[in-house]
Structures are given as structure tokens and as C-alpha cells.
């Protein structure tokens, strides 16, 4: 079976960015649909059923956050938001509203490709309907079913909360998770007030899993946003 052609809907009002995205996406084998406004984006999502949406949050008509919420009412389609620089809260709001990942302008083709790869991997997994339970990257091996973790073949002991945190990150491998999302999924906390719990656990996880915790390979910090687990073979 030939690889499917993934359809990406780009929602962006700036023509130069659309032009650059078209070149970049088509060179990598994607099919690109274009929308310049939020209304158009919602309409095209319904009519063309794209596989992935690249959504610029600064749209001329509707607020990008509103677009996310409206689409999320009926679709789980992966949404990658593109945010203007310096607007950390915008990114976080977009992610908390249901977007899957973000790209901050200006971004390189490489970053774009990485985000798309992650989205596609998650898409494929959910389509195939198979949840992997063993993940391996470099020296790190995680078995979610058996609740075990190894670094360089050595089993590492994790506390239940550490493991739960790691498991959440593993399930969203490659995607950014905001502080709020992690606090909610791991601790059931709704506010960000307790973000320092999270920081403490990430800190100890890094010391247990990373060779050099100050230059983390797996557990990446996205300053002002959250964390991203980076398990790639």
C-alpha cells in the first residue's frame, strides 16, 4: 500500500507565509489547502476534511482561539497553532483550548516537519487503533504496560507519581503539554498555582533519566509553555 497523501489545511492571512508553506509542504509530499480567514477555515475543515490544520492565531476575522474551540466541537483533527512571537500566553491558551502543538514564528522548515511528523505518528496510531506500550529512544526504554523504565539497560526506580507523569508525556510523545494539562492529568489539579510541584517532579525525572540534566535530550522545557517529551529512535 502506497503512503497516503496527507492533506494539510493552512489557515494564514499572510500571503508570503502561505507561499513559503506551500513550497515547504509540497516538497515534503503533503497536499496543501489554503484558508485566509477563520470562517473559511471552519467551512473548509467541514467540507474538505483535512488531516492536519496549521492555524495562525492572528486572523483578520475570528480569534484563532475561537476557531480551535469551534472545530473541537465536532472534530479531533490535529491542530498545530502558529503564534506570533512573544505571545506565550496566546500559545498556552491555544494549547489549553485543544490545539495539539504549536510553532512560534519565525520557524524553520525543519521545525515544521518535526511537528507534522509527530502529528502524523499520533494520527497513524489512532487509525491503526494500536497502542504501543514499549518505547525506546537512545539509552532510554519505557514499558508502560509493565510500568518499567530502563536507562542503559539498568532498571530505574520511579515513584508512582513520577511514573504517571512520564506515562502522560509518553502518550503524547513529541507533543508539547502545557503546565495546566500536566497538572490536570497527573494530579487532577485545575489551577496552575501548583506548577512548582510539576517542576520538582520534572527535575527529579531528569536526574533519573537524562545523562546530563542541564542539557536534557528527552525531557525538553518549552519556556513559558510546558514540557515536551522527545523520544525518537
Amino acid at each position, binding site marked *: 500500500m502506497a503512503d497516503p497523501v496527507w492533506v494539510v489545511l493552512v489557515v494564514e492571512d499572510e500571503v508570503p507565509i502561505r507561499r513559503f508553506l506551500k513550497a515547504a509542504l509540497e516538497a515534503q509530499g503533503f497536499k496543501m489547502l489554503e484558508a485566509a480567514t477563520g470562517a473559511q477555515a471552519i467551512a473548509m475543515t467541514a467540507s474538505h476534511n483535512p488531516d492536519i490544520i496549521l492555524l495562525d492565531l492572528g486572523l483578520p476575522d475570528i480569534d484563532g482561539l475561537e476557531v480551535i474551540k469551534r472545530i473541537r466541537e465536532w472534530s479531533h483533527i490535529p491542530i498545530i497553532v502558529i503564534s506570533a*512571537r*512573544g505571545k*506565550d500566553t496566546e500559545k498556552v491558551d491555544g494549547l489549553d483550548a485543544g490545539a495539539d502543538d504549536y510553532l512560534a514564528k*519565525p520557524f524553520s522548515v525543519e521545525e515544521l516537519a518535526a511537528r507534522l511528523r509527530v502529528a502524523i505518528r499520533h494520527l497513524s496510531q489512532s487509525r491503526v487503533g494500536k497502542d504501543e506500550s514499549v518505547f525506546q529512544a537512545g539509552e532510554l526504554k519505557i514499558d508502560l504496560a509493565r510500568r518499567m523504565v530502563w536507562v542503559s539497560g539498568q532498571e530505574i526506580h520511579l515513584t508512582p507519581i513520577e511514573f504517571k507523569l512520564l506515562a502522560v508525556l509518553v502518550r503524547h510523545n513529541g507533543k508539547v503539554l502545557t503546565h495546566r494539562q500536566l497538572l490536570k492529568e497527573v494530579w487532577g489539579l485545575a489551577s496552575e498555582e501548583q*506548577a*512548582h510541584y510539576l*517542576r*520538582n517532579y*520534572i*527535575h527529579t525525572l*531528569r536526574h533519573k533519566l537524562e545523562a*546530563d*540534566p*542541564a*542539557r*536534557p535530550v528527552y525531557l*525538553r*522545557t*518549552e*519556556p*513559558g509553555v510546558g514540557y515536551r517529551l522527545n523520544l525518537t529512535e
Partner: protein
Amino acid sequence: MADILRLAGERLLVCVGPSPTSDKLIRAVKEMAASLEAEWFAVYVEDPRMLRLPEAERNRAIYNLRLAEQLGATAITLRGRSIAAEIVNFARQRQVTRIVAGKPLRPRWKGILFGSPVDDLLRLSGDIEVRVITGKPEAPKVTPILIHPKRIRWPSYELGFGYFLLATGLAFLMYPYFDLPNLIMVYLLAVMVTAVHCGRGPAILNSFLSVLAFDFCFVPPRWSLTVEEAKYIVTFAVMFLVALVISHLASVIRRQAEAARLQERQTAAMHALSQQLAATRGVEKILQAAVQHVSEIFECQVAALLPDDKGGMYVAAGDPGVFQRDIIKELSVARGAYDAGQMAGWGTQTMPTSPILYVPLPAAKAIIGVLALRPKDPESEQWLLPEQLRLRFLESLAKQVAMALEVERLEKTALETQVAMETERLRTSLLSSVTHDLQTPLAAIMGSASSLLDLRSQLGAGLAQEMLANIYDEAERLSRLVNNLLNITKLESGSLKLRKELQPLEEVVGAALNRLEKKLADRPLTISLPPELPMVPLDGALAEHIFLNLLENSLKYTPAGSALAIAALLKGEEVEVEVADCGPGFPPEDLDKIFDMFYRGTKDLEQKGYGLGLSICRAIVEAHGGRIWALNRPEGGAAIRFTFPLKVPDQQ
């Protein structure tokens, strides 16, 4: 022509006294001054004799003086022994052309015996025209204030009598050993002491008693008022006269001393107020200081009122209890005083029935506000009477308060102007710095892109690749610049609220290192973050920029492949961080300035981005309450050190 000039220069002076006719005199001179369009002075000379006048009369003099002032005169009080001499002196100083005085009303014999000030005036005035106006006393006007019964000071008479008894006792002790004249001396001493301590009345009584006692007890025949020798009659007469003169002189000294003491107290009070005003900033605090001083000096409740937008007044400082009843009516009297710029209320011509005295605060151009004074006991003579110049003193206090308020206002305006100028300067230097920093990469990008567009066929594959890399690098530089600009404008404008959260420094360093992963790939990097390092309150996203900027600077200014180091140490209540390289280091003379370059915007803009990046670092570090400084490491290479306090008093 000469006449016109003279008219133009006409200056009138009216002599004001306690006489009930002064009132008429003042009004007459006012009309004269108005018709001549002349400046006019109302002068009251306070000589020791005035101090002896009944309180009511002294107050009438002040009342007259104030009337003159209200009618537009410059009111002056002089002190001196000779009324005429003081007036003529003053008139010459101020180039007064005409002096107007009232005709004295006292009995003619007094004038012949003691001389009259008007006669002296005529004699001394020289080329200044003197006019004497006769005034019949009008039916005494209802003088609303300042008439209070004089308190008789019985204790003074008792004390005087005590001195007399003491002298008599002493005389008995001396009698066996001394001649009679020596005893006279003892009595005279007692008279003088009485005059100084108790005033004139007791001293005169003492003089009389002394002569009687001396005669009765010591002059032969003793124990009788008769005398053997006629010469003693002369002795008694002289003794009585000397005693009178002494008591008179001594009481004059006493009054002068009292006047001086009063003057001194007022000066001290004025000084204290002015010192406090000089050290006080803020309208409210100035008014509070004024209220406090005035209420202490005058023993009354005081409130400071300022005008509101609606044509009323409001209590800005002090004791709102000043207004016990009728606050609406009282505030309208206050507003009247404010609008007219003249005292109103208790004891003045305007609304004298009010229990409160309103004193306007006159600044150079306008009245700023009003002080409201409610005497604790309006009947008390303490308040106005014994120190007759209290109202005028109050006015000068008010002027001083107004001046302090004016200075405050001017200072505020000046400060605002300065801030505006500073902002403007910063904006200009930012603009020039940014323009330069933007232009360079843009020129490189446009140049490279246009070479690719126009000369594609001539450029070899290698050169084309180089152009493309150039475009990418310069665009990246632009991007970094815009990021920095965004941060600095937010920090500078104060619109950026730090989102400080406790976090491991490691996390911030890690984020920056992850972001620079590729550029740092060929650099040996030592990271030394001791495990005992506590969590630090940081805005993670901003703090990351410190490391990004410092590392990027090091990458730019040090040879490829040379080592970098990041280290942190716990030092008491703060964490000290160092980012170091092994490059050429900073020019030693620049060490103090490198964080300023962006602010100055003058020197060496050629060092691209260097200043801006470091100024951002400083802005971020300082926003966290830390310090940042640069040094050259002894082993070579540059280092930037900065601190983050672990406890920040004001969590923003």
C-alpha cells in the same frame, strides 16, 4: 509734564493708630490714593507706650491696619521709640511723597508736656508733605472682635507687696549699722525688682509705700509720720520721684523684653514651620504640617481646605471637627475667603458671627486654599489679645504654607518635564540603535537575494549556497533582534509583568541550551550547577533570554571550537551565575559600560547587537531584583556574572 511725572510717582502714607478716627482717616486716604492712582502705605508704629494701652485700644489699632490692607494699602508695622522718626524714616525709604496723619484728640496739656507725634512729624518730615486731618470720632462702630475685659493680675500686686515687705525687713536689719541713705537704696532696689517682675502698677504702689514706711520706721522721730528736719521732705520727694522713674524705666524694659520674647517665639515658630515645610513633600503632607504647627501656635482646631471642581471647598487635611455645625454655610464662607483672597469669618469684617476664622493661602499667582481655625475658646483673650500681631503673624504663616505648596507644584511640573525629556531621549537612542541594527541584516539579505535572483547563472553552486546561508543567518539575526526589542520595550514600559515561579536554574539553562543545540554542537561546554542549589523565583521565559543572549554573544565573539562555561553558586540569600568564554575578553575600559551602550546609543554602534543584548540581560536581571556585571577572567576570556535573589520582597 513734571506734574504728571510727580503724580505718577505719588506715594501716600497714612499713620494708623488706635484712635477711633483712624478708620475715617484711612478711608479718606484710600479715596485720595484712588484719585491719584497712587500706591499707599498704612503704617502703625508700635512703641513701648503702645504696649501700655488698654487691650481694646491696641486691638483697634490692628483692626485699623487690617482695614487699610483690605482697602488696598500695603500695611506695615514698625517698632521704635519715636513714632515720628520711624514714620519719616520709612517714608524716605519708600519714597513716600505725602504723609497723612490724624489730629490728636488728647487734651492739649498732654501735648505740651510730652510733645505730640504729629508735631515731631511736622518737624522731621523735611520735603515730604504732611497733612493733618481732623476727625471727629464717629459713633463707635460695632467692632465685632477683640474687645475683651482686661484681666487684673492680682498676684502681681501681692508679689510687689512681698518685695516691699522684704525691703522693709532688710532695712530693719541694716538700721543699727548703716546710714539712712543706704536704706533708701534697699527700697529703690525693691521698687526696681517689682517693676521688672510685676509691672508698673505694683511698682508705683511700692514707691509710695516705700516712702511712707521709710518715714514711719526709720526717719526720726521713729514710729511717726512727722519729720524733725525739713531736709527729709526733700529726701522723700526725691526718693519718690526716683522710685517712679525707676519703676517706669523698668516696666519699659520689661515690656520691651516681652515684645522681644514674643517676636522670638514667633520667629522660632516660623522657623520650625519653614524647616518642616522644606523637608516635606506632597500636598497632603505639607497641609498636615501646616495644620499641626498652626494649631499648636494658636491653640485652636485647624483644618486645611482646598477648592474642589464644583465651586466648593473640601477638607484636605486636619481636623474635620473644626466644623461642628452649619458645615455647608461654613464651607461657603471658606469659599468666599478663597475667592476674595481675604480672611473671613470670626473676628473679621466678613461674616464675623462665624466661630471659625478663614485664612487664605496666597501663592504668587492665585490662592491655593484656605486654613480654617476654630479657637478652642472664642472668648479667651489668650487667642488674639496678648500678642497683638497674631493675625498678621498668621497671615505670614499662611503665605509660607502657600509658598511651600507652590514649590511643590512647580517641582512636580519640572519632574514631569524631566521624565518626558528622558523618555524622549531614550526613544531617540533606541530608534537610532534599532535602525542601525535592522539595516545591516536587511542589507545583507537584500543583497544576497538580489544576487540569487539576478545572477543565478553566473553564481556557481557553491556561491549560491553561500548566499542562501547568508540570507538565513541574517534573517535569524533580525529575528533575535526583534525578540530582544519586544522584551525590552515591555520591560521598559513596565507593561510586562514578571511571572515569577520557583524553578530549578537547571531548567532555564537547559531550555536555552536546547534552543542553541546546533550552534553549540562544536563547543566544549562545562556546566556546573551544584545539586544543593535551591529553586529560584524566576520568570522562566525571560530568564532564558539572559542565557540565550550571553551565549550568543560568546559564540559571536570567540573563535569557533573554543570552550564555554556556565556555573552557579549559592551565595547567602542569592544565587550567583556566571557565563564565561575563552575569547579575547572585553576591552578593559568598556567593562563598566557594556550594559549601557544601548542606553547611550552614542558609542560604537559598529559592535552589532552587543549593546542591545547585554542591556536586555541587565533589564531582565534587574527586573528580578538582581545585579549584573562583566569581568575578564584572569585565565583569559570574558565572563558575565549576575545574581538572582532567592527572596524577593515585592513579588510582582
